């Protein structure tokens, strides 16, 4: 329940921000809606399966799935649609599936697939970046037709 209480508060804050934004320019044609679920591996009759649920209780080591649903609510097509998501403090990008995402390990300065990114190793050289090094995620969609929608997700592990 506490998660919802915090969400409600954040929602109010968000509303205030968009209200001020609306005064300066026209209403945003694109909507983003974030969500999070906890991903638990449940073993039943010897078979393990993933069960997604509301993150009522979250402890280090738990797996979270963050999602951002987008929708072009406007009447015109939207181009150069780029969604950027900083990896929150307290979690790291899960290794599974991390390789397919466009990521940054330097705070959003340089981008690429994890396999091509490197970090200073503290001894004058570099080392290959790992999923736990990821600071930002990015999704680039060229065009959103009116009414187009989808969901972007990433898996994280509570540090």
């Amino acid at each position, binding site marked *: 329940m*506490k*998660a919802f209480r*915090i*969400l409600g508060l*954040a*929602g109010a*804050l*968000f509303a205030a*921000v968009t209200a001020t934004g609306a005064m300066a*320019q026209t209403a*945003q*044609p*694109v*909507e*983003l*809606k*974030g*969500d*999070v679920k906890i991903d638990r591996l449940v073993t039943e009759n010897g078979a393990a399966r993933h069960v997604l649920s509301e*993150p*009522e*209780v*979250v*402890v*280090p*080591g738990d797996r*979270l799935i*963050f999602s*951002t649903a*987008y929708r072009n609510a*406007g009447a*015109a097509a*939207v*181009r*150069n*649609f*780029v*969604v*950027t*998501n*900083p990896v*929150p*403090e*307290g*979690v790291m990008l899960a290794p599974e599936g991390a390789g397919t995402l466009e990521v940054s*390990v*330097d*705070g*959003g*300065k340089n981008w690429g697939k994890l396999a091509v990114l490197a*970090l*200073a190793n*503290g001894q004058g050289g570099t080392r290959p970046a790992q999923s736990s*090094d990821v*600071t*930002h995620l990015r999704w680039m969609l060229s065009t*959103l037709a009116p009414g187009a929608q989808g969901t*972007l997700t990433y898996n994280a592990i*509570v*540090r």
Partner: protein
Amino acid sequence: MNRNFAHRLRPALGLATAFTIAAFPGCASAAGVTAGTVIQNIATATFTSGASSGTVQSNTVSVKVDELLDVAVAGLTVAPVPTGSTSAVLSYSVTNTGNGSEAFRILVDPAVAGNQFDATIQTIAIDTNGNSTYDPGVDQILANGTATPAIAADGSLRLFAIVNLPASATDGQNSQIRLTAEAVTGIGTPGTSFAGQGAGGGDAVVGASGASASGLDAIVASLAGVALTKSAVLVDQFGGAQPVPGAVITYSLVATVSGTGQAESLHVTDAIPAGTTYQAGTLKLQGAALTDASDGDQGVASASGIDVNLGTVTGGNTRTVSFDVKIN
């Protein structure tokens, strides 16, 4: 908004390794992100629509991290502590391997399966001043079954169990003493949760340790046994060995101390036999003369008997006391 700001600042810090540490202050601990930390996720989209461009933010998705109840206990005494008449001080470490501040109930159990005897628990204490040595009167005493003060996540506390040998123990016997620490919030099978009882305002969840752990230390009984043998050599005044009046008997008392421990305050005493007279100045220890008077040396002798104070003698040693009497 704050999040984006923080991330923009990061590249200015330079080295990637430097900012990795700076970016996740909550994960410096091995136990994971601190209980009560709120994980907040915000996505931002940029786009162009016709001639104008726009930016839109998602709502903030928040997840509060609950408290993981975990603990590790280790017995710090490497070899069994030889224990005789004085008590043994055993050391244990209790480490909060959870992610929140937690107090732990301490139970010291001397009845461990396989013990040859069970020690007596005298005192349980916390190494309050952190010097790894039990300081009576300084280190806080803990009653068996009561809780430590709260230990910070990843923090560790040294505990002492002061134990005594029971009267039943014999030399060389071993005994283990178990110290168990249980999270005060609760214990149980991993995953058991305690709603609203976590550090930082969330729930508390039992971790892999079951929120309970124990460690073992051991003592070995180090005791001594004393055997006393008495022999006599008779020499008469005619060069023979006849028990006639005037013959001199030299008594030898051999104290043999056995075992791995030590005999303390060991005295060899003997009465002068009736019909004989102690010969002044003949009391000897290990062949060396002792004065008869009660003075600086270890021996006292009089017409009634002798008393030699051997003090502390460790196992494997013998002490020989001798004195002469004359048959009346």
